[in-house]
């Protein structure tokens, strides 16, 4: 390693680190080594476990491999006030969504998939296609099953012949995610209500 004592002085942190040791005259093994240091780089980001409504905080570590990052570990985030660093067995296995024993999980869906009506097989489609298809289906279903008015029922339980404006569809339902924030959940139900959807459910899985 080609570093002089002067270089070490510059890297001296506050305590008795490498710089100070070299100043004192110690021969550090790392300095004496002829091989360059095998340095690897990695990164940790925060995440949220996706398996239930508790929403435990996670830390996802990934190693730099060439020009991309590979997820190597998912653990509980000690800074998260929900789980203080712990995860249940489901959460602790989160990494298996991407990798099982270091190999890509073959069952992981990474692209939109489409199964045509009456077909038994899935085909890969683009995001543009997928979004267009969903919009089309929502429009068709909503138009076909639109309830404009409801009958007004009298005290005897029979229709009075009067009508009341309803503007809804009962042919579409919404299942929210367990990990939506209050704000996300608010926006989701707002979009659904604007479409006239009345079956708006959550997905607690507690």
């Amino acid at each position, binding site marked *: 390693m080609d*570093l002089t*004592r002067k270089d070490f002085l510059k890297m001296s942190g*506050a305590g008795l680190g490498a710089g100070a040791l070299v100043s004192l005259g110690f021969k550090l093994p790392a300095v004496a080594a002829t091989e360059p240091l095998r340095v690897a780089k990695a990164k940790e980001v925060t995440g949220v476990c996706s398996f239930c409504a508790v929403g435990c905080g996670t*830390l996802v570590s990934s190693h730099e491999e060439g020009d991309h990052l590979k997820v190597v570990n998912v653990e509980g985030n000690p800074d998260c006030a929900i789980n203080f660093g712990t995860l249940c067995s489901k959460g602790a296995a989160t990494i298996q969504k991407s990798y099982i024993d270091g190999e890509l999980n073959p069952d992981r869906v990474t692209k939109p998939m489409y199964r045509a009506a009456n077909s038994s097989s899935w085909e890969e489609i683009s995001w543009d296609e997928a979004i267009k298809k969903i919009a089309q289906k929502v429009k068709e279903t909503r138009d076909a099953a639109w309830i404009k008015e409801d009958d007004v029922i009298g005290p005897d339980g029979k229709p009075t012949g009067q009508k009341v404006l309803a503007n809804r569809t009962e042919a579409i339902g919404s299942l929210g995610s367990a990990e939506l924030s209050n704000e996300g959940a608010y926006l989701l139900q707002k979009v659904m209500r604007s479409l006239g959807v009345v079956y708006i459910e959550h997905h607690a899985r507690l």
Partner: protein
Amino acid sequence: MIIKTEDPGLKGVQKAIKQYTREYPDYADALRLYGQVMRAQQRTLRELKSELEMEQGEIDLKLAEGVPLLNPLELDIDLLKYRRLTGEICAVIAEHGPEGFAHCDEIASWEGLDEGDFARTRNDLLTGKRLSLGEKWSTDEEREIGRIILWEALAPFYRRCASILESKMEQAFWLRGFCPICGGAPLMGVFRSEDGLWLLECTLCHTLWNVQRARCPFCDESEGSLKYLFIGDNETRRVQYCEHCGIYVKTVDMRDTGREASLPLENIITADLDMAAAQEGLKPAGPGGAIRG
């Protein structure tokens, strides 16, 4: 959350030195030398009393505003005890340093440690200014050793005050990259054995404080900028660094080890990480022991 830093005491230092020299024989001489320094510090610490008092309201307010609880530039230090400890550390380095130390007598008679000049010496040390040690100190290395000795002798005096304040300190108010008590730079970090919480240890008062994982504690522009590097396959000892501000702090992961780390000793055995960091052009937190706040 309150975090209490346990002082190792003489026995603790002894035990740690034994363990680290066994596990890291390549660093045994350096570890033994620093063990002697730590023992001298612990002996002085035992003798020190502090009558420091601070209202809880004042503590909470200062922390919330990002102001360290003590002004390190105004701490009263018992000069007699400080000089004695300085002499002890000089003797340790003269005896155990591979190249000895020729300036013990000069430090003992240096006017920078006189009653009238000491406040300036203390503050020059703390703010990383060059000390006016005199002409006999001819090389940068000698001056650096002098600085290390004088710095290490300050530690117990700050530690004593810190040990009183830390039990009243709500960690959630702080989460910054410099010491909440004295403003000192972190010596090293640790992922706590029981839950992986990231704690930093102050170079000066050796208080442990909490910072957030996956965020740079040193700058505000840290969204996604914190990375780490490690050597070979050993991820338990790493350099946590920020791509934005270029500052690093070495950190040891103590989970699954079933024991506590001695960060001053970890700092020695991870010297290769400092070299790796230097190769990447990174800067240590608080070069020269500078304080902030």
